[in-house]
């Protein structure tokens, strides 16, 4: 078992730059997710780690070993593919035994290890089945057992759950996390599903336009996104451009008007450097609705309800402002009756709910 270290990885496909100077370290035993929209280079990066692609520039370390030019079969990486890639002509047992047979292990040892791996994913009784006789979730578990059977140094998962339906995906996420904890193996998951990345990972690396936009714990990347790209990619977000007012030493946003018609002077927890304009972020669930005219609250804004969608556990409200609109997520429990479109509403939030962003994407 070992960590992974990527140093200044660049990948060019002709004119196109898929990865641009990516460096990151995955600690031993860590569950690390590479998250990003399609075409951001995350799969390319995984293929470089797995040895299916040699980077144009940069060095890949697994443990202390420089593996940049090693072919995949000489690296100690177990890989799980989106299509599962089970060998359709082999039984479940033979699929899991495949890597062990390559290693020329003794028959008894192979049998023992295969059954161990299968019991890890609770499929011992399916050893004699053919892949086509299994459900999608079971095939996925065989693919994981097969990758783990060779006791790799790292486990690479390429969108392994995206072919499963929503409910099964949730179950498999939990199972995947449990297996990873039990085995304690360094794992890199590639996904475009932010919820999956947030719920599974120790840390997340967000990739956009071939560059690492941010690396952090799920909490960090959600609550303190580095830039606009990260903020917009993970979760829903309200973004506003704030101007600094020299006279009052506060920020104002043209969109925000109080119930008395005055411009709101924002109270913020942490000041960015003064001057110019700043991009600020407000998560929809941080915004609260208050009763009429309650101006004791800081950051109190008045608007008109433009749209209400009921999602069950929460309500998604679109509040029309002086200019533009703001999205608010409110708990279902807060409303005995649904608010009506056209009502005047008052919203407010705490100073620490305002997060300043870099307006630029790291490109």
């Amino acid at each position, binding site marked *: 078992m070992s960590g992974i270290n990527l140093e200044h990885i660049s990948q060019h496909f002709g004119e196109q730059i898929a990865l641009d100077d990516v460096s990151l370290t995955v600690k031993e035993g860590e569950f690390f997710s590479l998250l990003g929209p399609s075409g951001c280079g995350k799969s390319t990066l995984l293929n470089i780690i797995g040895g299916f692609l040699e980077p144009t520039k940069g060095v890949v370390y697994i443990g202390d070993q420089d593996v940049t030019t090693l072919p995949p079969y000489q690296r100690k990486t177990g890989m799980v593919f989106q299509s599962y890639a089970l060998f359709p002509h082999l039984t479940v047992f033979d699929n899991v035994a495949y890597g062990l047979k390559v290693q020329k292990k003794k028959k008894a040892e192979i049998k023992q290890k295969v059954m161990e791996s299968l019991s890890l994913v609770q499929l011992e009784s399916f050893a004699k089945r053919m892949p086509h006789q299994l459900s999608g979730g079971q095939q996925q578990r065989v693919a994981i057992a097969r*990758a783990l059977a060779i006791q790799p140094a790292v486990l690479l998962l390429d969108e392994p759950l995206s072919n499963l339906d929503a409910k099964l995906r949730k179950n498999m996420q939990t199972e995947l996390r449990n297996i990873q904890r039990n085995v304690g193996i360094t794992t890199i998951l590639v996904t475009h599903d932010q919820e999956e990345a947030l719920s599974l990972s120790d840390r997340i690396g967000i990739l956009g336009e071939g560059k690492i936009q941010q690396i952090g714990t799920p909490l960090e990347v959600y609550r303190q996104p580095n830039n606009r790209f990260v903020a917009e990619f993970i979760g829903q977000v309200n973004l506003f451009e704030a101007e600094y007012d020299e006279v009052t030493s506060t920020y104002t946003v043209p969109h925000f008007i109080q119930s008395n018609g005055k411009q709101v002077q924002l109270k913020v927890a942490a000041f960015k450097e003064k001057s110019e304009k700043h991009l600020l972020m407000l998560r929809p669930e941080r915004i609260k609705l208050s009763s009429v005219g309650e101006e004791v609250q800081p950051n109190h804004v008045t608007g008109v309800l433009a749209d209400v969608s009921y999602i069950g556990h929460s309500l998604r409200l679109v509040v029309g402002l002086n200019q533009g609109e703001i999205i608010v997520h409110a708990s279902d429990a807060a409303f005995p009756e649904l608010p009506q479109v056209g009502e005047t509403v008052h919203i407010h939030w705490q100073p620490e709910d305002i997060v300043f962003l870099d307006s630029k994407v790291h490109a």
Partner: protein
Amino acid sequence: MRIKKKNQRFHWFMLLPACLFLVVFLLAPLVMMFVLSFRDVDSMMNTLQSYSLSQYLHVFTTDAYVKAIGSTVWVALQTTVICLLMAYPAAYVLVKAPHPRLRAFFYILLVSPLLTSVVIRTFAWIVLLSQNGLINGMLIDLHLIEKPLSMLWNMNAVIIAYVQVMLPFAVLPIATSLTDMDRHLRPASMSLGAGRIRTFFHVTLPLTIPGMITGAIIVFSLAAGSYITPLLVGGRMQPLLPLSIYQQVMQVYNLPLAAAMSFTLLICVLAVVSLLSYLLKRWEARMHA
């Protein structure tokens, strides 16, 4: 439900022209030939009205014909094996062509010989292989041989010509099954520690067996049944069943014997083809539901 039934009736109706064609030009002649093969002939080769097994007895008791059955199957088998061996690398290159346009070019290159008639292509082999042909001329000019080799009018010439004519029919199904393979299977094998060669023999080759069997079925039936190619490059004395049939029809005019030989050949080909289809079915049943 009624609409569905109507639809189905319409589908059958659409199949009618093709079915009619096959009945008139394939099934009916086969039945007529089958009946003919049981007729007797007199010494002047006139077909008599009486039925017997005499023609089949004639086929199976004449050494030359029994030998012809054996060598027909043997030559077809050799052609099939050589075709498969040569077709596999070609199919591989075809499928792995880095650019779609290059792939299209390879496909055209592969199929273009099919646009010329078999007769013309076979004549080309005569030009190449004869005593004063291109290959002998070149070998003599290079002082590699003194007397011209006799490469024409034997079974080897027949097999060479067969392979050239039938190669595309082996390449195409193999290429199709290579294309159908999940593109992650080879990376999966390599991530499990298997090198390229092991991956080929344990993953790629087994998964392209259906393509190889399909190719083998086509090549074998074509090779066992053709008479133009052996006639032109093998000479009419080669012990091949299609040539014997040709002789009986065109020279001896013993139509019942020719019919009996045709059915013997048909049954030989069907036996091999059914064995291959059975293997194909077994293999596919293993991999799919």
